[in-house]
């Protein structure tokens, strides 16, 4: 590994952490798209900065870009507060308008200058190690590392100082107001941090990767936990994993670093989405299947209960044609009932055990009184084996 490779991974990891923190709150507040919005709406800031300085490399351009990002946030909040439209609609209204203003300004006044976002913000992780800060002859390291480092430290300090406020205002705006801190101020604060992070990270790693790093790790963490602290930690972890793994896949494939990191983040999300313990697709499907089998079992037990006097109705062979079950299905239901000691089979005749009887009667009771949710709790008490 040469120094440039280490620096790239370090910058990518710091950006990942700096993005994961505001990203977690944005995902929880259903405002994840604001990052995408900001990455577009900074254009007018850049254009106006250029009109003032006539210099594409002036820091004023980046300053005004950030201001333009904050303006986006303020306008979104303002429109949203009218209550006439939802968050996503407000975002969708604001950023195309700002972006278009930038485009119109360029085509009216500067169509013969190479003026676009790429001309001002580097947005290329591969070149970050070459854009360095030097004082005299001393090399202080890549500029991006310093910018992202300062943004990250500020974000962390703010997070630690206002963790409680952020938490309460994210989950319960009413409570936050009654506790004496204004959710609006916290909201603007968070949005400003997001805006500054977006522009700073944009310069270091490019627009798409910033959006991916803000949203994907937080969304992945959200599948795994409900605890805010754990979610923040997991999001950070996923972000860093994506950054490092992504870098090395780019190395192997000789491909774009940002592109590879984004792809890895997507794959990690997909894996968690499939295999997460509670919210994962596979466990949801498995639970549905289990649920179905248990409903069948209950139907079967009800049938036995109804016909406790008629042996004819309780013959094993009879199940097939009477309740219209196929052989396999009736066999699984029978074995499930047996395993749970709900029934006994004597000479091909099925009878409810005492436990089966109590279970069925309680279930009937709940069904009549419309308390279906109670059945789920009851299953925990009665079942030795689930469906």
């Amino acid at each position, binding site marked *: 590994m040469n120094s440039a490779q280490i620096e790239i991974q370090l910058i990518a990891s710091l950006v990942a952490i700096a993005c994961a923190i505001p990203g977690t709150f944005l995902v929880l507040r259903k405002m994840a798209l604001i990052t995408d919005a900001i990455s577009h709406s900074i254009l007018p800031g850049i254009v106006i900065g250029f009109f003032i300085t006539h210099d594409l490399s002036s820091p004023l351009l980046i300053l005004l870009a950030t201001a333009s990002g904050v303006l986006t946030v303020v306008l979104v909040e303002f429109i949203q507060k009218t209550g006439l439209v939802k968050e996503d609609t407000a975002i969708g209204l604001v950023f195309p308008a700002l972006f278009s203003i930038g485009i119109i300004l360029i085509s009216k006044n500067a169509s013969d200058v190479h003026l676009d976002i790429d*001309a001002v913000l580097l947005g290329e992780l591969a070149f970050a190690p070459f854009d360095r800060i030097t004082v005299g002859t001393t090399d202080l390291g890549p500029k991006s590392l310093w910018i992202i480092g300062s943004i990250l430290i500020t974000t962390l300090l703010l997070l630690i100082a206002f963790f409680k406020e952020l938490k309460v205002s994210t989950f319960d705006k009413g409570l936050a107001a009654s506790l004496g801190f204004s959710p609006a101020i916290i909201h603007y604060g968070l949005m400003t941090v997001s805006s500054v992070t977006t522009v700073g990270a944009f310069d270091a790693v490019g627009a798409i990767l910033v959006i991916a790093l803000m949203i994907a790790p937080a969304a992945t963490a959200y599948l795994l936990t409900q605890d805010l602290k754990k979610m923040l930690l997991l999001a950070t972890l996923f972000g860093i994993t994506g950054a490092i793994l992504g870098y090395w896949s780019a190395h192997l494939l000789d491909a774009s670093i940002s592109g590879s990191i984004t792809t890895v983040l997507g794959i990690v999300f997909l894996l968690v989405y499939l295999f997460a313990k509670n919210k994962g697709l596979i466990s949801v499907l498995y639970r549905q299947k289990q649920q179905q089998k248990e409903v069948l079992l209950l139907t079967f037990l009800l049938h036995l209960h109804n016909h406790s006097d008629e042996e004819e109705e309780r013959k094993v062979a009879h199940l097939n044609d009477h309740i219209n079950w196929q052989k396999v299905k009736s066999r699984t239901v029978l074995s499930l009932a047996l395993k749970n000691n709900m029934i006994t089979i004597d000479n091909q005749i099925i009878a409810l055990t005492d436990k089966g009887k109590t279970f069925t009667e309680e279930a009937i009771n709940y069904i009549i009184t419309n308390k279906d949710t109670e059945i789920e709790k009851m299953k925990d008490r009665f079942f030795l084996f689930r469906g």
Partner: protein
Amino acid sequence: MKNTIALLFLSALLFSCNSNQKTENEKLQVVATTTMIADLLHNLGGDSIELQGLMGAGVDPHLYKASEGDVSKLLNADLIFYNGLHLEGKLVDVFEKMESQGIKTIAVGESIEKSELIGSDYFASNYDPHIWFSVSNWKKVTEFTTKKLIEHDPKNKSLYQKNSETYIKKLDQLQQSLIAKIETLPKEKRILVTAHDAFSYFGKAYGFQVVGLQGLSTATEAGVKDVQKLATFIIEQEVKAIFVESSVPKRTIEALEEAVKSKNHSVTIGGTLYSDALGNPDTNEGNYLGMFAYNVDTIINALQ
């Protein structure tokens, strides 16, 4: 967690101190940004330099995305040649800063005097970067590049000089054949309509009026009024053909064709011109001489 971050930060500073360890290689390691510059260096240096190109054929330099391998190419380079004049966007700033780290970067655009450059109407010190579309400019770039190669690799001086003389002869021949070809086209027919303003130097050098549908920046798009105005212009001037560029989508030029047709006139799309990048390396348009001849042939044939 805070400790880990502090640690990371510290280690970054430590690591960044011992950068620039280059493997000693006898050949001069040279990196070129655009295909035009890579072609020039190939002609000048031949096998005595280790040449790496960053941008591939047909890549719009403004939209170039680096791959991981480009990092090592840049890191191991002794000399980096780039166009400059903001052609490579923000990368130009990076190259300027790399100077201070001992990696020598050279903007070939510097070889053209400021008075020869075509400036922006609105903003001073912002120049049109498409300098290669005038053979006399490219000759200056060739001489400048040769001088820089000799400066950094004096032991191959005679080779560079010989190659440079041969190449300049070729450029002179190209210039003569181009002028002869263009002479066959009546003056009033020398109007070149293209997708974006890449051909201003070409127009200035060979007496063409050049009209670009789009501005210099490929990020903006042509407005409806631009298209209509240009359509009227094409009809009034009886322009026979308009041109698509290899590195700009043809959509806008097709819109222009439609606009002219809707006014009951006809204009054909005269072909694809190479603008910001050369053609595929294994074709004749993959080098500067072939590309320029191809462009001029395409223009003359379509406008004749």
